[in-house]
């Protein structure tokens, strides 16, 4: 196997596995703050119990997230030494700031949240919940800033020998590309958080146990999921898409499976790309819609893949499917959340088992949508490791060979399989113990 492919497989595997857990922590953290706030405000034991229940679920997520996150910080150096050497003056900055400003905050205050309930005042305890939320969301920001720079490099200059130098730290940290990407990523996590809370609530209602909590979780989960699934598409997804249209038109063409440049380009709802044949197989099109979404005019020209040299195409099939999976699921999320919210408003949701079943079974899909979004962003960025500036091929470690990377990839695969089993087992156990058990404590 080619060493570049081995390194890419390793990075995509470790980062995709890792990201499952930040989805959970970033999505659940606001609920922990909410329940702790209600507990402090009303003094009711059930809110404190709900906060403790979600803190335990958060804790398992955090534990796996933190141990799988450590390799991410160091893999740039181990497997992508040429990339790190060249871009470190710029992308090292947000990574360093993430450690100093966000990761400390989350880790240190989580210690209080997990172990400090009887040792600190209720106010400091609530403050710790807020700090953990802030830490997890700030972490997300600096990581997105790092990625946004690879998508659309800004705030740098080239030195006499072609080396990349930092021109403006502020330009990197407040890159306009990062703003909408971050908003999109975070609303994606909020959608996941909403559906996780609603799904577990639905389970309690269907299982006819912990009913008071089940109703509360379904109610707050559905409201958050509805708000999130609207915001994830408009404005955040739409604006992020506008940035891609402006700065990465090849990626846009691959996402949409558009091979030929077209005035009034149609939007493919389904279809399978036939890359050698330059067409979609069995497509269903909405005429002119892609032109409208990309440029605000139904007759606008959208460049197809064939307007660009083939060596600048990303892997078309993967980019296309990842994007369509994300958008398709996003549409389903709005429909489900809106339907559930309607039933909630009519006060029928808790007595409608089919709707609760849908909420329960939907739980894995926000994870898939979040991961598919990242695959669209990162596979669609190929063949560049830094868009327009450095090719992925040129980024690997000169002295690490395929055999070493395959060995460590197998090691990571084994380790992460074990971690995945532990996560499922311990999360199911916490759910089966349930929040009602917490009231007595």
């Amino acid at each position, binding site marked *: 196997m080619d060493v570049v492919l081995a390194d890419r497989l390793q990075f995509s595997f470790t980062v995709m596995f890792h990201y499952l857990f930040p989805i959970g922590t970033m999505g659940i953290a606001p609920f922990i703050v909410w329940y702790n706030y209600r507990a402090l405000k009303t003094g009711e034991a059930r809110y404190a119990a709900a906060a403790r229940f979600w803190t335990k679920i958060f*804790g398992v997520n955090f534990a796996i997230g933190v141990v799988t996150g450590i390799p991410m910080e160091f893999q740039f*150096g181990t497997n992508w*030494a040429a990339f790190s*050497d060249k871009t470190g003056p710029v992308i090292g900055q947000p990574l360093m700031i993430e450690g100093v400003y966000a*990761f400390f905050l989350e880790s240190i205050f989580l210690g209080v949240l997990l172990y400090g309930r009887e040792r600190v005042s209720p106010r400091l305890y609530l403050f710790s919940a807020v700090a953990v939320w802030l830490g997890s969301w700030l972490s997300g920001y600096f990581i997105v800033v790092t990625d946004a720079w690879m998508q659309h490099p800004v705030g740098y200059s080239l030195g006499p020998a072609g080396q990349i*130098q930092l021109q403006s730290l502020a330009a990197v940290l407040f890159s306009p590309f990062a703003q909408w990407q971050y908003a999109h990523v975070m609303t994606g996590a909020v959608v996941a958080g909403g559906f996780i809370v609603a799904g577990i609530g639905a389970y309690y209602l269907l299982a006819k146990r912990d009913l008071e909590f089940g109703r509360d979780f379904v109610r707050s989960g559905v409201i958050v999921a509805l708000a999130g699934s609207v915001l994830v598409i408009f404005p955040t997804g739409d604006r992020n898409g506008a940035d891609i249209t402006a700065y990465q038109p090849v990626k846009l063409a691959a996402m949409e499976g558009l091979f030929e440049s077209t005035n009034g380009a149609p939007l493919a709802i389904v279809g399978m790309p036939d890359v050698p044949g330059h067409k979609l197989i069995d497509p269903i099109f909405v005429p002119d819609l892609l032109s409208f979404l990309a440029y605000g005019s139904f007759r606008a020209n959208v460049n197809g893949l064939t307007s660009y040299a083939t060596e600048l195409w990303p892997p078309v099939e993967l980019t296309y499917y990842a994007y369509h999976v994300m958008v398709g699921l996003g549409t389903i999320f709005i429909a489900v959340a809106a339907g559930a919210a309607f039933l909630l408003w009519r006060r029928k949701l808790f007595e409608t088992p089919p709707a609760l079943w849908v909420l329960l079974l939907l739980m894995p899909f926000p994870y898939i949508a979040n991961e598919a979004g990242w695959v669209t962003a990162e596979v669609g960025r190929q063949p560049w490791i830094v868009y327009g500036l450095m090719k992925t091929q040129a980024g690997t470690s000169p002295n690490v060979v395929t055999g070493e990377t395959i060995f460590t990839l197998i090691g990571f695969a084994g380790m992460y399989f074990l971690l995945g089993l532990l996560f499922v087992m311990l999360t199911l156990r916490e759910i089966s113990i349930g929040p009602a058990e917490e009231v007595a404590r």
Partner: protein
Amino acid sequence: MTSVVAFCLIAAMLTAYTLLDGYDLGAAAIAPLLARTRGERSAIVESIGPFWSGNEVWLVAAGGALFALFPRAYAVSFSGFYLPFIIVLWLLMFRGIALELRAHLPGDMWMDFWDAALSISSALLVLLFGVALGNLVGGLALDADGYFTGTFGSLLNLYATAVGLLAVFALVQHGLAYVAAHVEGALGERALRYIGTVWWLVTIAYLGVTAATIALHRNDLAGAPFATVASAFALAALVSVGRSARLGHAMAAFWASLAFIAGLLVAAAATMYPYLLRPHAGATGRGLTIFQAAPPPASLALSLAVAVIGLIGVIAYSVFLRRRMPAKVSVREEGAAASPGR
């Protein structure tokens, strides 16, 4: 100038990591020998439970700082020591998982398994960190670009192994002092007594490594004055660790141990200076100094300021929380171990 400040910042962050996570690792490594019952073992782990994750962030943040401030050194060293590095990552993962999940299921088997995993991975981590430091201070086989040309086996040379043993003894002593200062009752007292024994091993290893370092670098030591002062400071602190332990002053022994380790690491950093990767005598490469590895100074100054201000904030809220949430624990009856979130 900014390069020197950046070097000092990273050295300080790694020192903070060793001082803080050092007691987690040391206490976990010695736990099987120190604890007589499962309840005692749980008390040791619970004394570090709320803090280990925040302590470990010092390592991650130092990695980020190395990436930002000396990208060339970050790239060359992490890929150059590929396999040992990945093994360290795996051990860190095992350690973290063991600490976080040991109390999540009822039953003694579950806890015994994770406690064994915790102790083994902690002990190996300390040894590997020590060996790594030994190689950095002792010098490496490097090619002209600064990439490592030796083998895994060559990293386990006599000098580096000696530093690895010093690290194990020193951090076990540190962990014992932490347990003595933070766990009440017979367990804390026993930890203090154990220091009396470990102290001799630390002292022998310290003297041996110091003599070997002087012999190795006697002609070539830019930071010699700093190294000498720091080393003497470490020796004084080490004497104080032994004395405090004998007199039964647990907290004083812990503070002295902090000072001892800080002294050792400052001495190590001064010995390395101005290198990030020091070539060993007779190597073909020139090594990698802080001046070659750093990006242009102008771009560094602001990042350094941002990092330093952030770290002052981190230290402030860490200290605040330690005061609000003292780490004192006591040994519980069998089977009554607390688990997170309860």
